[in-house]
């Protein structure tokens, strides 16, 4: 019984459910303003209260979940594809190719992701596709490293040597022997990159460099309403943040659970 896995998966499922059914669950439209209802605290009418333009914060959060989750999953998919390809190619071919690829990884790692993202997004227009591109560009190195080291150890294992001795071509070895065996660690890395991407999107949108405000995401809801905190309106910032935390926590639990389930021998340091 893997409690972390189930707890994480259940909560994540709930958030996905909310996001998918957003139009049926929300009684208010996320961008409809109603100045008469501005700044209302949480109530039965408005579960999470309303913001300074009278928009329903609950509806905005539910619609924001669509953007934030979409970014999280899309970035994880992109980073996993890039990371697996780079890791497999580098680890399998070794030599110059491996060296060049790993130096690229080192270069990207010599700047904190968030700084590289800020620099790039400031010079290209903020928007959902640029955010995706930037988070994918800065996020694949961890997966590549994991897959590469896995490939390095796999390629000296007997079953790979046997296949090679039987005359299997490189492409066959990579696709049918190495790829299936690196998928488990890659999946774990992908889960953690969902969490990273959700946090990074929220941070970038919060700095005004991510998703533009007309499309609510968890980060830009908080960015827009930040000033209201000073006059005591806490709910517009509090609730989207709680959603980010619980979703990221659920994804991290899922990742930890998957790690325990898929790589039982490799418990090691549980950090």
């Amino acid at each position, binding site marked *: 019984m893997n409690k972390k896995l189930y707890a994480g998966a259940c909560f994540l499922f709930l958030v996905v459910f909310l996001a998918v059914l957003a139009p049926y669950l929300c009684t208010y439209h996320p961008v409809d303003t109603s100045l008469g209802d501005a700044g209302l605290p949480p109530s039965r009418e408005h579960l999470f209260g309303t913001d300074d333009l009278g928009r329903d914060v609950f509806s905005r959060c539910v619609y924001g979940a669509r953007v934030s989750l979409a970014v999280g999953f899309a970035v994880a998919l992109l980073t996993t594809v890039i990371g697996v390809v780079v890791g497999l190619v580098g680890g399998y071919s070794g030599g110059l190719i491996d060296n060049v690829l790993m130096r690229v990884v080192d270069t990207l790692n010599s700047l904190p992701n968030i700084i590289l993202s800020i620099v790039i997004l400031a010079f290209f227009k903020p928007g959902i596709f640029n955010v995706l591109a930037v988070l994918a560009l800065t996020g694949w190195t961890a997966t590549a490293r994991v897959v590469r080291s896995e490939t390095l150890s796999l390629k000296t294992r007997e079953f790979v040597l046997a296949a090679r001795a039987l005359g299997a071509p490189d492409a066959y070895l990579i696709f049918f022997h190495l790829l299936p065996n690196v998928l488990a660690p890659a999946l774990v890395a992908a889960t953690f990159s969902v969490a990273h991407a959700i946090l990074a999107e929220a941070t970038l949108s919060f700095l005004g460099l991510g998703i533009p405000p007309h499309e609510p995401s968890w980060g830009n809801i908080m960015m827009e309403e930040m000033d209201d*905190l000073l006059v005591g309106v806490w709910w517009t910032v509090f609730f989207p943040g709680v959603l980010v935390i619980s979703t990221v926590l659920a994804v991290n639990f899922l990742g930890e659970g998957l790690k325990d389930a898929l790589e039982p021998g490799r418990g090691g340091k549980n950090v």
Partner: protein
Amino acid sequence: MDLGRYIFKRGSQLLPLLFGISILAFLLIHLSPVDPVEACLGKEEASLLAPEDLAGLRASWGLDRPLYGQYFIWLAHVFQGDFGISHLSGRPALAVIAERIPATLVLMGTGYLLVVVLSIYLGVTSAKRQDTFFDHTCTALSFIFYSTPNFWLALILVYLFSVKLGLLPVCGMASPKALTFSLPELGRHLILPAAVLALSTSPWYIRFLRASMLEVLALDYILLARAKGLPEKMIIFKHALRNALLPFLTLLGLAFPHLIGGAVVIETIFAWPGVGRLLVESALRADYPVVMGLTFLFSVFVLLGNFLADIAYLFVDPRIRYGGEAD
């Protein structure tokens, strides 16, 4: 391998990385569709300039040359300690950056110290009391803080301590009324940003130290120490912690990127006059020379952290020194 040669070899690997990051940053910045003149002066103002003035301005910023030419000129100047002229302020970029460094050092230094103290105290205590209420609470809180966006934590703490309780200042490094520098004033302004930096950085280190303490506490020599009847304090601090700290020490060198990344966001929220906020400001106004300078500075800092972590490992774990290269 002998120590000096190892350090030299490891150190010489840093230069190509710096080249790499400078080329990457340069390309990304200069391929962007944002026009630096428009971003700096504002669209309206830029359109009011006469075309020849505009061309003159672009020429004085070196924008009329081809990309590789711009890069080599930038690089040649960097070797002379010249990072160009800031488009926004018209002063040397290096001076603009340098005057912001102390504020960041104060914030990061305090944050770093807090991370070390928090993670050693909480890591050791929760390992010592494994599976108690304290340990479970500490684990739960570490997971929660690990998943919390640092800006959200900052906003909530500002709301609680500044808006509701009125105890601490909302932002800045000193109150606008203060004419002279005073340490207590700085301290009051420092509490919230440093706390946010530490709380958002330390969970990972607490978990790591806890795990490494548990690993050490399960070893035979600890059992022997217990059998000898040594006091628990001595076992924990003298026998176990010393060994558990080895991997932790090198990890602290790798904390630099986390701290810098955190500082950028936190400085922006708290209007802390450091280099992190300078980065966001200059990036938003397309001030190339300052952004390039800061990118360079940050990567030097991160690479130096990695380098020190490697060297520290040599000293604390002699096996690596004699057993060949560290991975």
